[in-house]
């Protein structure tokens, strides 16, 4: 009886070791899985924060706003509409100012300054011409 008992305890011990090993490998797998899930999750949030997608969203929504706002412009004011859209598209001056901003002179700064001058012509010219046109539209006295 003693012999069988000792054998049983031996097999038990062996089984226990095997089990322990299995648990270890499973837990290792779980860790790798968790790590993978983690990287996946990070990638997903990265995609959502990707500036391009964010900017495309803004772009598409702005096109829709433009579409509805411009259809409501009265045809009589289509010339002032062209003049004012011309003036406001010169908001490109924002990009020009950034490259004209640093103190040291290089090609980028010169390009920026030229763009500042060109956009300024448009901004002043566009808004003034729009104002001149709009002032002429009057009602019956």
């Amino acid at each position, binding site marked *: 009886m003693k012999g069988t008992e000792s054998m049983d305890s031996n097999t038990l011990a062996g089984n226990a070791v095997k089990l322990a090993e299995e648990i270890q490998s499973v837990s290792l797998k779980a860790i790798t899985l968790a790590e993978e899930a983690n990287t996946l999750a990070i990638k997903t949030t990265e995609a959502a924060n990707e500036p391009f997608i964010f900017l495309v969203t803004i772009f598409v929504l702005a096109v829709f706003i433009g579409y509805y706002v*411009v259809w409501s412009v009265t045809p009589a004011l289509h010339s002032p509409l062209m003049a004012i859209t011309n003036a406001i598209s010169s908001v490109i001056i924002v990009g020009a100012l950034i490259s004209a901003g640093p103190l040291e002179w290089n090609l980028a700064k010169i390009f920026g300054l030229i763009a500042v001058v060109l956009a300024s012509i448009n901004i002043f010219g566009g808004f003034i011409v729009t104002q001149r046109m709009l002032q002429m539209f009057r009602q019956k006295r």
Partner: protein
Amino acid sequence: MSASFSAFLYLLSSVCFIMALRGLSSPKTSRMGNIYGISGMVIAVLTTVALPGVISFGTIIIGVLIGGAIGTLIALRIEMTALPQLVAAFHSLVGLAAVFVAGAAFYSPEAYGIGVIGNIKVGSLIEMSIGTAIGAITFTGSIIAFGKLQGLVSGKPLVYPGQHLVNLSLGVLLAVAIIWLCIAQTQSAFWAIVLISLLLGVLIIVPIGGADMPVVVSMLNSYSGWAAAGIGFTLENPLLIIIGALVGSSGAILSYIMCKGMNRSFINVILGGFGGETAGTVDNAGDQAVKQGAAADAAFIMEQASSVIIVPGYGMAVAQAQHSLAEMANFLGERGVNVRYAIHPVAGRMPGHMNVLLAEANVPYENVLELDEINHDFASNEVVFVIGANDTVNPSAKTEKSSAIYGMPVLNVEESGTVLVVKRSMASGYAGVDNPLFFLDNTMMLFGDAKKMCEDIVKALKGTH
């Protein structure tokens, strides 16, 4: 200023620009709209100048002052009849500015946080290429449009064999140059994109005829917006993207309205070569007789009428006749004649061209009606006074299936009791199509310069009382 705060101010600026366009829904709110536009621009510029990287204030102020002075001077001096070419010239500046900003971003990418020289993000390079290409096309395209409108370049469409093939090849070449830039990131690739696009801009506009300019000017307006949006993507600046999208869609809608006014597809206009202002005089002029009258006859007919509808066209702008015309209309108004104006969508050389000229001559805008608003009134109207318009009042657009302008919406002037047509000669209109209106029994032709004719009619009206 923190980054979030400047982002907030840019948002405020965008809202101002949207309100500016919204204001144009009626002449009453339009002046407020312009103030919104100016405020939006001031906010955008000040916010940018307050950014930490922008410190070279002296040179910036000088740049703004130089540009501002030139712009102000031009805008204050320009004649209203020269408005279409002014707008075309302004479009070219936006295009060129876009090219320079893209160049600045290419040579100094770290200033915009998109990489370092020789190692710019591929996404940014693609956006930069698109912004540069559209900007350069807008630049040269607008210069050609300006030349045609100003009369420096012939208004005739310039067509040559293999035209579309040449443009297509250039388009393919442009795509190759963009791929080259993305892979090699060399200066040569960048300038190749600029040069190809500049050439493409010339070749796209050259084949388009003078009277199709309303579409071209609207299209270039749209392009200048898309160029700004392209640069906005490169610089990752939401303000530029929003404004670019607004302006781009605005120009696209105007192009669509103009194309519809001519019953032609956008593609058809862009491919160009339509009509030609040299197209021969009416062939059957010898067979059919026109009734001819003098200023005194016209004065008598209009004075006796209870209602007169005036239909102005590009000829009125060319002759600068708007003031004399308005004076004539005032005289008639004082005699108890109900005078109104009917404007065809494509009358003139830019959208809304006639409305501005009439406004300049102090015509109240309530008296100026669009085609849809007034076209049913011609049947119950007594006298129509057509001045410098031709294709837009051609009844064959409704009946002659073979006509080049068949299907184009036209003003139903022939339904009125008497039609007076002021015209310099019997030459056909832009489309080179005969106009049967001139030979109708109820039409009287008044040959002469539009301005002189109006002045003579005013004299005749004065003489009768």
